[in-house]
């Protein structure tokens, strides 16, 4: 079943995420990071840039995928990813309000490309913490009447 084009532009309810020191530590270890600040017990602790994946991808995408009207399905791969950061890295105790939305749905060959944006702001100031833009490729669900096209490009 194809994705529902009428969902483009939909913003889903914001969810709250609290940055935790032990989660930063765990994330940095999984990447083999050596910056001692990622493991710090002190005030200098900061999160690596792609730590944002830990709260924008799984949880942000879940908000979309659990919308029965969107028509998401499990045959998918991550096509591309962008993060745009605010003025400082995340630190333990930061509280973020994250708003997922659907920016576009396009078709290439048999596949559908869903572009989602999760806008994450510091709850206390409203300033941008990070914006995450993900392209998720849904394999094989494009409407049958679309003309075939090159579709081998995105695959991880």
């Amino acid at each position: 079943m194809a994705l529902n084009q009428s969902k483009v532009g939909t913003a889903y309810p914001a969810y709250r995420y609290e940055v935790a020191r032990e989660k930063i530590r765990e994330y940095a270890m999984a990447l083999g990071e050596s910056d001692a600040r990622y493991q710090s017990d002190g005030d200098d602790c900061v999160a690596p840039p792609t730590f944002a994946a830990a709260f924008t991808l799984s949880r942000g995408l879940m908000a979309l995928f659990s919308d029965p009207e969107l028509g998401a399905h499990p045959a998918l791969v991550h096509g591309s990813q962008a993060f745009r950061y605010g003025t400082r890295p995340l630190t333990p105790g930061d509280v973020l309000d994250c708003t997922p939305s659907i920016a576009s749905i396009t078709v290439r060959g048999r596949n559908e490309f869903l572009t989602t944006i999760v806008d994450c702001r510091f709850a206390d100031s409203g300033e941008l913490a990070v914006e995450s833009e993900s392209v998720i490729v849904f394999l094989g669900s494009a409407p049958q009447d679309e003309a075939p096209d090159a579709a081998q490009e995105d695959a991880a």
Partner: protein
Amino acid sequence: MSDFVFTVGAELPAISQPSNLVTSVMYAGASTDYNPLHYDQAFAGQVSPTGAPIAHGMYSMGLVSRMLTAAAGGPERVADLQVRFSKPWPLGTTATFSGTVTAIEDGLATIEVQGTGENGERILSGVGHVRV
């Protein structure tokens, strides 16, 4: 801090990293992305483009970020990063991540980044900007 000097044409110190069940399970837990495509042979056999488990795209992007922050001196230097996952990275193989400074303007260095698999295939390409 880092000894790396951002000048146009400079190549960032590259990093090579294996992917395997341990790295995949650690990244799944750390990122909360539990898609079994990345660690479950039976599941991956049905849906993976390679017929076997592949690394999280975000694991490869995280390694690009590690390379960038190591050269730049920390995460506070990274203004943005975007990558496209062009080919799967099979578990059990090693990938190399590299980057080249292509421009410096208004205090921002542009870095073109890439990830290369064991057989020379491009698994990732993208661009980032760091404050210099």
